[in-house]
């Protein structure tokens, strides 16, 4: 109980005093996760929508695989990215290991299947509803995908938020490919893991409270923007 009280007190103190290290960690966490989600949305939404509107042999297997990949273990992804980016790996020459870019790559790999699978479901449902009307108008190919993605935009905001939730809460992959280096690759989650391992539970809990707060704030802000846009345009 004492730890929890101390944690809340410490969290408030860190925020109210504008702790430089805390804000650096928060900034890096947000920039890494948001960039990873942006990359994942660009790839995952187009892929998911394309799968939703096309029929081809093996499609069922791809959908099942995509759904299964939503549960991809972060440490396995981290290990895979580590092997690829390490000095002996095929992309070692790029020198990306233990940089924020490596963390973005790992998180994007984790989030893309989530975004693609959920987008596939959302777009497929909408396509079923629009199918004959759009066929009648001759809408197909890229135009069909663009139309469905645009009309599903408010549902897709939720998909992006689900992806962000997966990315910002992730620790296994980023700690392997980022290395948790102070002032360079330390994020909220890796910092929490570190402080916990040091037995500094109050600080770890305080960081956890801040992380949850940030997560809620980002979700609230995006949902609010989406909701306001939806209401103002009433569509």
């Amino acid at each position, binding site marked *: 109980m004492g730890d929890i009280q101390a944690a809340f007190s410490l969290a408030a103190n860190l925020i109210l005093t504008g702790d430089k290290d805390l804000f650096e960690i928060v900034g890096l966490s947000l920039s890494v996760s948001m960039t990873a989600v942006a990359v994942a949305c660009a790839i995952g939404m187009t892929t998911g929508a394309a799968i939703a509107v096309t029929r081809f042999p093996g499609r069922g297997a791809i959908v099942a695989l995509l759904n299964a990949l939503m549960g991809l273990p972060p440490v396995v992804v981290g290990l895979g990215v580590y092997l690829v980016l390490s000095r002996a790996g095929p992309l070692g020459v790029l020198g990306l290991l233990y940089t924020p870019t490596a963390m973005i790559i790992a998180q994007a790999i984790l989030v893309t299947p989530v975004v693609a699978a959920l987008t596939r479901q959302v777009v497929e449902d909408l396509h079923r509803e629009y199918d004959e009307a759009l066929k009648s108008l*001759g809408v197909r190919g890229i135009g069909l995908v663009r139309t469905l993605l645009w009309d599903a935009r408010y549902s897709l905001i939720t998909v992006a938020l689900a992806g962000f939730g997966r990315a910002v809460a992730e620790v296994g992959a980023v700690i392997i490919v980022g290395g948790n280096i102070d002032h360079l690759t330390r994020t909220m989650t890796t910092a929490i893991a570190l402080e916990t391992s040091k037995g500094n539970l109050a600080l770890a809990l305080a960081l956890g409270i801040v992380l949850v707060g940030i997560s809620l704030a980002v979700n609230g802000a995006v949902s609010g923007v989406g909701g306001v846009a939806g209401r103002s345009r*009433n*569509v």
Partner: protein
Amino acid sequence: MSDSILPLSARNLRYEVNGTPLIEDISMTVAPGSFTVVLGPNGAGKSLLLRLLHGLITPISGAVGWSGVGSLRGRTLRQRQAMVFQRPVLLRRSVEANVRFALKWQGAKPAQLHEACEFALERAGLTDRRRVPARLLSVGEQQRLVVARALAGKPDILFLDEPTASLDPASVQRIEALLQEANASGMAMVLVTHDIGQARRLGQNIVFVHRGRLVENAAAEPFFRNPQSAAAGAYLKGEIVV
């Protein structure tokens, strides 16, 4: 815009699902500017026939041919026809955006877009509702919008699958007025309906379908005065036709 794609000529259409024939050997022609009403009991295959004619589904055998379309294929041919479904399908956009979307895909040039959109909204009586989300309109307004959207691109032929089913009489009257006006300007119509009164009001030609077969194809007046088939006669009397 080049010459009309009509007459439409369907030859020996056959369609089946899992070996069960749903449309059998139907041949018919739709002339430019005509108003054809497809009548028949529930499950007769009327809506399927409409989808076959419009090209939404492909017949197992037989073909739908269009006049002078050697060079017109795919999207261009599609732009010259439109269809209204029983349940209004509206994009999650404003009333105006729905019309603009259809116009773009029907090949309207950017310079024509505004004028064509204004005209369609005005004809449908939805000018004041242009910014309203289409899905917030009443059912009658939604169907009026769908009809206006289909008419906006001035297709050569409009297919309508029970567009006024479950609408109130005032909405039916407004939609029928839109259809009659478009037909008077030379647009051909093929309308599926259960409403015999509507068929009498609008139809110039009647196609009666029963159990997937075309049983009668006649001018409206003689059809209603003296149907040639027992099924059509019973249907017009209001009897249950199985």
